[in-house]
């Protein structure tokens, strides 16, 4: 009786220690980081719909896919295709620039740095509270990505090209990438952003 008691107790203790240590390693490897905990909340919308969050109002008119980008002095061919998203963005709180991201098939695309000056995100005037601007965001996407049927377009007003921290509410517009909704052209000249008059 005595021998079995102490053996059982020993086995239970060792087993508990091993399980606790393994669980600690498991949890420690999977802790969320501040950017996961403070991740943005998304306000969904479709093309043509005005999506309002406390910091930004966004309306996407549509998207176009082009092979070549017409700049002032030259024509830039895409490594893939150019996807130009046209929309109106209004800041509701304060000054900033209209940054955006395109999410296609789990991959994140940022506006290309060869887009002409004046297109979003860095428009000629910074975005200010209550004054909307109409313009385009220019993305470069590889060919095979365009076979995906939909894409998510997210835009926000801020000072950084990263998504702001502390639970921002970001509009997320669903774009249909088929020929009917997103026309294909061979050449496109993206216009400068202009203040929307009301």
């Amino acid at each position, binding site marked *: 009786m005595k021998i079995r008691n102490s053996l059982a107790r020993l086995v239970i203790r060792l087993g508990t220690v091993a399980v606790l240590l393994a669980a600690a390693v498991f949890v420690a490897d999977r802790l969320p980081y501040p950017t996961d905990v403070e991740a943005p909340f998304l306000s969904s919308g479709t093309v043509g719909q005005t999506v309002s969050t406390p910091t930004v109002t966004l309306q996407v008119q549509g998207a176009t896919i082009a092979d070549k980008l017409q700049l002032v002095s030259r024509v830039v061919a895409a490594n893939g295709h150019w996807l130009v998203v046209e929309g109106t963005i209004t800041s509701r709180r304060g*000054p900033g620039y209209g940054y955006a991201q395109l999410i296609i098939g789990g991959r994140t695309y940022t506006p290309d740095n060869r887009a002409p000056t004046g297109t979003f995100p860095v428009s000629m005037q*910074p975005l*200010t*509270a209550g004054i909307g601007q109409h313009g385009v965001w220019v993305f470069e996407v590889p060919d095979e990505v365009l076979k995906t049927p939909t894409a998510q377009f997210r835009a926000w007003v801020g000072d950084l090209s990263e998504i702001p921290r502390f639970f921002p509410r970001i509009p997320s517009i669903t774009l249909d990438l088929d020929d009917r909704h997103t026309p294909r052209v061979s050449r496109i000249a993206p216009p400068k952003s202009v203040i929307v008059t009301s």
Partner: protein
Amino acid sequence: MSTNETTIRRRITRPAFTSRLWFKNGVGAVIAVAALVAAIPVSVYDRDDFRAYRASRIPAHTVGPGTSVGIDGQEWSLGSVRQYGRSPAARRAAPKGTAITVVQISRSGTASHPARCTAYLIEGDRRWRAEEAYGGDFWVPPADDATGECTEPGSLQFSFLVPDDAHPSAVDLVDADRGITVRVRL
């Protein structure tokens, strides 16, 4: 035997609530929270952040309309607030639905510690930043004795492009650490 029973009965009374567990836990929690709060001004890590936060919410000086306040050796008072749809001096006319608001702040005297500032027009949660002299399409150049820089002497003038539905309440002058140095209420 009877004295034993009465002694026993007197001991079996309800204890006062100060010895209850919930009371002791509550007192401990209050003390813990008070200690954490008291540690903020003392903690090396927290006190600078807290001071910067307070400075960004509470202006160091406030100038009311019609009053004159001495700040840093200068007398500050609100000069005038004008709205233009089209200013002859600005490069562009204000688009439809917006207006150019020009705020003049009278300053006399010399500052002992001139510091750079950025001007914001405030309405509740919304802010508009002052137009830049270099490249600002809606910048109205100040008169000869006025300037747009806080470091220079003389009165200040700031131009803001605001929407028609704006009812601004104040102009905040913000320093490089995002602390509000002067709030001029309109």
